[in-house]
Each structure stands twice: as C-alpha cells, then as structure tokens.
C-alpha cells in the first residue's frame, strides 16, 4: 500500500485503535519547559501517579527566566521565581534531565531538543507548547499538547489522538536574494489564511525544501501552528543526517547505522494520497512583513495594506494604528527584536549581523538580540557576531524566549511599534498595547538601523 510519510510514522507508533476511532499513540520523547511543564509535573505529583519512563523526558527553562546578563532565579514575571524553583524540584523528584538556567546547553525547548539530538527522525515527540511542530523539520512526528495531555503522556507513555487529515505543500522555484524561509512560511499563511491548514499534518516538500539548511527548515516548520496545522513534516535526507551526526543524545555506532537505514525509508510513497495539496512558487516571493494582528495579515514589503472590508481587518488595523491601502515603508519603529524559536539560530544571527556590520541602530529604537540557546550564543561569540550586535547598539542577551511574549516578565510598552523575528503578532503578545510586525532577521536588522520599516534588500551587497 502506498503511504505518506505521516502514515508511516503514525502506523509505527499505533498501540491500539480506540472505540471512538482515535488511536493510542506511543510517545518516544516528552519535552517540558518551566511554564507549562512545571504544572504538568506538579499535576502528576499531586495525583500520585508514576512518570513511566524518566529517561525519555527532558525539561528546559526558557519562558519564565529573564534574559539579562548575570541572571538568577529572580525574574520580573509576577510569581516567576516559583515556576523556576518548582520546576527544578519536580525535575529532581522525577529524576528527569533538566537544562537549567545557566547550563551550557540551556535554551528554548524546541531548539535544545534538536541541538541535543533528543528529537530524531521517526520519533514521536510532544511538548506542552504549540511550536513543537518546529521539530517536524527533522522528520519526527512532533506536536504541541496541553498540560492534561502532557500528564497523560508522562503517566502512560501514550496519547489518545484522532488521526489528522493530511496536506502536502510543494515549494517550487528558487529563492530571491533577501528572501528567507520566514518569508516563505509567511507567504503561505497569507495566501491561504490563518486556518488554512486546520488540524492537518502538513508535509513540506519540493526543490526549495531540498536546498534549505536544517536551520531554515526549522523556521519554516515553526510557523505551521500559525497556519493552524496539527504539525509539519519534512522527509529526512542527508542534510538531516549530517545535522544529527554526533549530537549528544543521537544514536551511536551500530545504532546509528540502523537508524540511518530506517530513516531512509521515511518519505511519502509516490502514489500516496493526501487530503489536500498546495503548491507555492517561491520565485514570486520577496521579503514579507505583517501589518495586522494575525500572521495571515501580511504583505510583500513593496505592497500596500489591503482594503479593510471586514470587521476583523478593521479592528486589527485600528490596534496597529495603520490604515487602508497604506504602505508600511518608512513607518517609524520603537523596538526591534531578534530571537525566538522561529529565528534565534546561528544562521539568523549571521544574516542580521551581515546587515548590521558597520552600522548603528537608530537612537529611537530599543534593539534586543536574544540567541535562542546557549549553544547558539557561544558559537556566535566565537565568530565575533556579538561584537557586531553590540557595536551597532543591540542588547546582547542570555538565551530564552525573551521578548517573544513577555518572557521573564518583560514587554514593550503600550503603543510602541516593534519589528520582530518572532512568530506571533497577536494583540498584546509583546506587551499590552504593543504593536508587533513580524518579519525575517534581515528585515529587522535593516529597520533597526533606519528606525523605520524598510526593504532589507537595499542592504544586500550587489
């Protein structure tokens, strides 16, 4: 029988079909963080239930901790310290591996999970965090769950899941200069709407995917939750294998060889059937920027905001203080943020530094760069990237979620306009009343320099 990549993963993990038509799916890895994971661990403790396999459960600190240099358990987040200390206690109680605040391998959960080789092709991976779909880039079946389901997974090593529908998105053409995988995924969401992939397992494929680096693939899969997908998937290939080789928790020796053999079978068979298929011509894409309060409310940087026909668009425009058919170019900004599980990786920092080199951030802009993980921070410092950021006027932070969402209790102010490499431009996401425009690291770097939204391509060497 011809099967999709998703079906191969699904069948491999199905323990039992349940009376309601859903299936009991075996879970290979559980990843936690101190905001939602902590509550799940405490819930398990309170119910007196056992955590079945502590070896396959991991936890990091990223959401509550602050990102200022010299940080401790104290944060600006109301009640934050309790989350940090209780997570530490619970991790110890259940004997699970914790990437603690100032460890050399701490970072944002979805980044650590990949960097450490905890997520591998062919595994099922869950985390009480909606951006777990990021890890589908490795060819793992990885999805975000709630706290109750997380307790379920820890207590039973399984989850009850209704088999999602399947979509395939083929990315054709080539990438134009100044265009990154952030722009591609924003373009997909803009084209088909914020619920365009509702509940579906979405496989990304095509010539453009094959050419993308592992890091760029993570960025692409990351925003599948903004497309309302159940998760994203990319068939593993040599890019994937090279990325994983030698990682701490990746298989070694004969296990590695067997794994590679298995992983090479992870692709959709030629005649496998999807419930929906889309195709995107990437040659048409230029840098994107969001104008509203949903990632779908985005435009090419050269385009104008559409005519605001419906109430949702009108209220988004009102919140963002933008109007009908306005161009975003030259709109003054007060904040610029580079980081997050979308764009907090080494290649993102490199792309931004390339533009920042020799320039200064506009004096009216609070500019912050937060590497997504300690490993990224270290590598960036070894390359001297931090000097470029600091010389330009960026704050250089400790790893974590940071200003992506008020992490560490820190936000931008009411009415401020921010350009950000993050994934969500929801109302109040970066602070009550703060207006977020999401874009690529290159776009954020260029805007930080000019103090206003610009087309980053003017900074590219010709």
């Amino acid at each position, binding site marked *: 029988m011809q099967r999709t990549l998703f079906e191969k993963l699904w069948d491999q993990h199905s323990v039992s079909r349940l009376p309601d038509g859903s299936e*009991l799916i*075996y879970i290979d890895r559980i990843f936690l963080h101190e905001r939602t994971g902590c509550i799940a661990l405490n819930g398990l403790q309170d119910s007196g239930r056992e955590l079945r396999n502590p070896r396959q459960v991991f936890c990091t600190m990223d959401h509550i901790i602050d990102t200022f240099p010299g940080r401790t358990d104290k944060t600006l987040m109301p009640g934050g310290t309790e989350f940090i200390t209780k997570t530490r206690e619970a991790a110890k109680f259940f004997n699970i591996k914790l990437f603690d605040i100032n460890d050399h391998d701490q970072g944002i959960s979805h980044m650590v999970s990949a960097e450490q080789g905890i997520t591998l092709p062919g595994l099922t991976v869950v985390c009480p965090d909606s951006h777990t779909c990021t890890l589908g880039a490795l060819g793992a079946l990885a999805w*975000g769950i709630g706290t109750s389901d997380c307790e379920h997974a820890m207590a*039973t090593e399984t989850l009850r899941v209704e088999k999602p529908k399947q979509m395939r998105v083929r990315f054709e053409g080539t990438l134009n200069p100044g265009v990154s995988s952030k722009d591609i995924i924003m373009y997909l969401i803009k084209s088909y709407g914020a*619920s365009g992939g509702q509940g579906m397992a979405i496989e990304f494929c095509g010539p453009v995917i094959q050419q993308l680096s592992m890091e760029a693939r993570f960025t692409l899969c990351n925003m599948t939750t903004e497309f309302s997908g159940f998760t994203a998937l990319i068939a593993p290939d040599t890019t994937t294998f090279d990325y994983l080789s030698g990682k701490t928790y990746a298989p070694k020796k004969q296990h*590695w060889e067997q794994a590679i053999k298995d992983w090479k079978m992870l692709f959709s068979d030629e005649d496998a059937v999807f419930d929906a298929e889309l195709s995107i011509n990437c040659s048409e894409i230029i840098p994107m920027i969001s104008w509203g309060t949903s990632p779908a409310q985005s435009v090419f940087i050269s385009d104008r905001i559409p005519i605001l026909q419906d109430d*949702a668009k009108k209220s988004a425009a009102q919140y963002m203080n933008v109007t009908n058919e306005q161009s975003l170019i030259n709109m003054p900004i007060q904040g610029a943020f580079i980081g997050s599980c979308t764009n907090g990786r080494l290649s993102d920092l490199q792309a931004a530094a390339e533009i920042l080199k020799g320039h200064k951030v506009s004096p009216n802009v609070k500019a912050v760069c937060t590497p997504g993980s300690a490993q990224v921070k270290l590598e960036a410092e070894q390359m001297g990237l931090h000097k470029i950021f600091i010389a330009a006027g960026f704050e250089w932070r400790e790893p974590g979620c940071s200003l992506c969402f008020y992490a560490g209790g820190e936000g931008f102010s009411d009415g401020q306009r921010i350009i950000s490499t993050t994934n969500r431009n929801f109302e109040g996401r970066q602070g009550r009343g703060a207006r977020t425009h999401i874009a690529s690291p290159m776009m954020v770097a260029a805007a930080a320099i000019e103090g206003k939204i610009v087309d980053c391509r003017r900074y590219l060497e010709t």
Partner: protein
Amino acid sequence: MKKFIQHQGIVVPLLSDNIDTDQIIPSREMKKVSKLGLGEGLFSGQRYRYIGEEKEGPNPDFILNQAPYDKATVLLSGRNFGCGSSREHAVWALVEYGFRAIIAESFGTIFQNNCLRNGLLPVVLSAAQIQSIADEIGNTADAFSLKIDLQKRQVSSSKTPSYGFVLDDYSQQMLLNGWDFIELTLQFRQQIDQFIHHDRKLRAWAYL
C-alpha cells in the same frame, strides 16, 4: 472532571475569528504554578481599564461587563477559536469564570482537546447557524439563552431552530460521565508494555 449532561445559559457573542489563547488569558495573568486562580485574568486585556500596567477597574465597553452578558455561561464565536499558544490556562480560566460551553465554527486543535479534558463543551456549528443565533441575540431585548443537550448533541432555544452538532461518541461519553482519561488509558497498560517490548527490538536506536 465536571460532568456535562445538559446546560441552559445566557449566550455572549464574541464573533471575531481567530480569538487566540493570548487574548483569552494573557501571559501576565498566569502568576502561579496552579490550574486555579485564573478566572480573574480571563480576557483581561479587554475586560479591564488600565493606568500604565495597573488595572484601574472594569472596562464598561467590554461585553462581558455589560448586563445581561455578565451572567453568560455560553460563548459564541467565529472561526478558529482558541488558536495560538497551547496554554491550558485558557480553558481553566474560561471554566473558572463560569463558562460551560463554547460555540464556534472551528477550534484550535490543542484548545479543543484541552476543553474535552476539563469538562468545557466545544460545539461546532456552521457560520450560518452561528449568524442566526447572533441575530436572535440582537433581536432579544432581555437575556437570550440556549439549551445544550449533550445526550442529543443538540443546541436549541425558544427562538431559533434546533441545531445538531457533531462530537465523537467517546468524547461525548467522557463528558457525560466526567471520566478521568488517564485512568481509562491505564487500563491498556498491558497492551502498551507489549508494544514497547516488540518495538524495542525493531527500533533499538529510539530508546534511551
């Protein structure tokens, strides 16, 4: 988990699409390592007035602060309700505030699962059905209430036709009986162990 069998309550319309969990409960309201104490933070961005970052008092312009909607227990919304962050706090806040059911055209997947784990009934109706309920709310001077019968999987009122909704049998049983789903799965322990025993031989590399 609290059972859901039948419920009759006032409906409040919040009809926009894509109401995300950041709006339902902003991060700054999640102050404790606890599933409780979240009702006050529900929709806090709109529900309160602020001076700087401090709450000054209720925002009278927000519908949940207006009679009769301040007594609402059923929320009516548009497409993709509960999208965004996986935070189960959104459901805990809605439940603690007093909501028993959410009617929407569609739901964020994680949010919908979270509802079912906490006795909050997610009801999917079509855009036209939602519009007809909204119209009826607009036409009713006093409180408009709906009756939701989970056994019949039906929504009805004295003023609108009855609408059936889809919910799988299993979820229906869970809610009707208030079952603990972890307990139910633990009954499969033997089967799970057999699966692992077999799988370990096939995928030795996957086990740490």
